[in-house]
């Protein structure tokens, strides 16, 4: 089953090959849910993929597997990391951490906030981790906060007490500040008003133009149709179908 990296699709940056993933709930009589059954996807720079399907169809599981948040049962996830192909399913934990710092970004639906840490510091953290100087990182985040219309009086506060939309904007700034070659988006606009949704659409377009590959779950049809040029449809108990 292991494939040689030479056979990976030319020009691609991420390649998921026949992913299988199920969940066993040991505390509920050991029920097993198979969720992914051989899902595959090849992603090229500049693509924006929409993962579509009903809730429970596996799109979220697929995306979390791409981030190595979920551990797949079978299959390979090849990611081009700093000029080298890495298979996330066999990487050591510290390798995954490194890939997440430099290559693979993720905008989750919810911001995990830390009491006492300001919005600015929360958002600048990944950029600083990637080796950018603190002042440069903070300047970058400030400009994104401005773009996203996050009131400046909030910047120095901990996002603990922020509204859903404010938290989501901090989360977006956090991931968009870094130049990840691959960015995973989990409903990035779910809590945003129209104006800010528009800003996010612009930001995604910019990323695409810069050659970033994006894979997202968008519930907002309008946003999806404007930013995505490809789609992967999931349906319950069936193999995902790819359209493009």
């Amino acid at each position, binding site marked *: 089953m292991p494939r040689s990296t030479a056979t990976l699709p030319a020009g691609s940056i991420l390649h998921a090959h026949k992913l299988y993933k199920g969940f066993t709930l*040991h505390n509920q009589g050991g029920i097993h849910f198979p969720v992914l059954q051989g899902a595959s996807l090849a992603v090229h720079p500049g693509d924006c993929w929409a993962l579509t399907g009903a809730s429970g169809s596996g799109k979220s599981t697929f995306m979390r597997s791409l981030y*190595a*948040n979920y551990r797949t049962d079978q299959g390979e996830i090849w990611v081009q990391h700093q000029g080298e192909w890495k298979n996330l399913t066999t990487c050591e934990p510290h390798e995954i951490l490194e890939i997440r710092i430099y290559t693979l970004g993720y905008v989750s639906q919810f911001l*995990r906030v*830390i*009491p006492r840490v300001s919005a600015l510091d929360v958002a600048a953290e990944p950029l600083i981790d990637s080796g950018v100087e603190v002042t440069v990182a903070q300047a970058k985040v400030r400009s994104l906060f401005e773009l996203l219309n996050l009131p400046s009086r909030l910047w120095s506060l901990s996002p603990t007490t922020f509204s859903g939309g404010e938290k989501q904007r901090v989360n977006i700034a956090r991931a968009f500040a870094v130049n990840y070659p691959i960015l995973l988006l989990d409903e990035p606009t779910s809590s945003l008003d129209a104006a800010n949704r528009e800003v996010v659409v612009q930001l995604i377009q910019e990323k695409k133009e810069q050659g970033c590959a994006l894979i997202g779950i968008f519930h907002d049809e309008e946003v999806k149709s404007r930013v995505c040029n490809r789609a992967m449809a999931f349906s319950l108990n069936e193999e995902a179908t790819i359209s493009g």
Partner: protein
Amino acid sequence: MNTLLDVQNLSKAYGSVQACDRISFSLYPGQILGIIGESGSGKTTLLSAIAHQTPSDSGQIIYRNSANQILHINQISESERRQLMRSEWGFVRQHARDGLRMKVTAGANIGERLLDIGQRHYGRIRAESSEWLEQVEIPGHRIDDLPGTFSGGMQQRLQLARVLVTRPRLVLMDEPTGGLDVSVQAKLLDLMRQIVRSLNLSVILVTHDIGVVRLLAHRLIVMRHGKVVEQGLTDQVLDDPHHPYTQSLISATLVP
């Protein structure tokens, strides 16, 4: 990247009870490794076996020191080991009174580690003590107070300062937030997080608090009955737990 610490097949039994059963893991520089499990799962024994305070029955503990030498912790002399514990390693204990000298002032508690490594200049030791008090957010004017007059959270922060003053590379923490109020815990956690990042520390953090590891740990080991039942990145283990024990541990947590 070279590992900082390699633990290989570490075992320790107390009579017929296998407290640690062939535990293996590697720790990389700058990483926080969380060890979770219920009371009696062997996590504290593991920590003290790594520091060789409880000698293990079998297995290897291999540490790469700042001079890039490979040290086998079970094989080096006791003198080297104690030297290591006072310089490159640090131990933060659950009860501050086990990690502090309660009869000497806060400043002396921090200064002791510097005296241990041969510093003999009062002024500089005192300056460094007050700098570290500030780092751990203890008001400078408390430098000449006894730790007994401090609150629980302050004592833990003082313990942290005492350990960090010698710029250790590996810190072992045994339930550092245990017994603290939630709000006090948050402050300590945030402080630990900042310090670990700015000093590029490697930490082995033993706790039964899933919230603590979620916030601090890069990686997680789940122990039960002396065995590692599951390990991986923290978010992997917490979001996609495989082992029945891990699943029940996580589903039993009040705040996920």
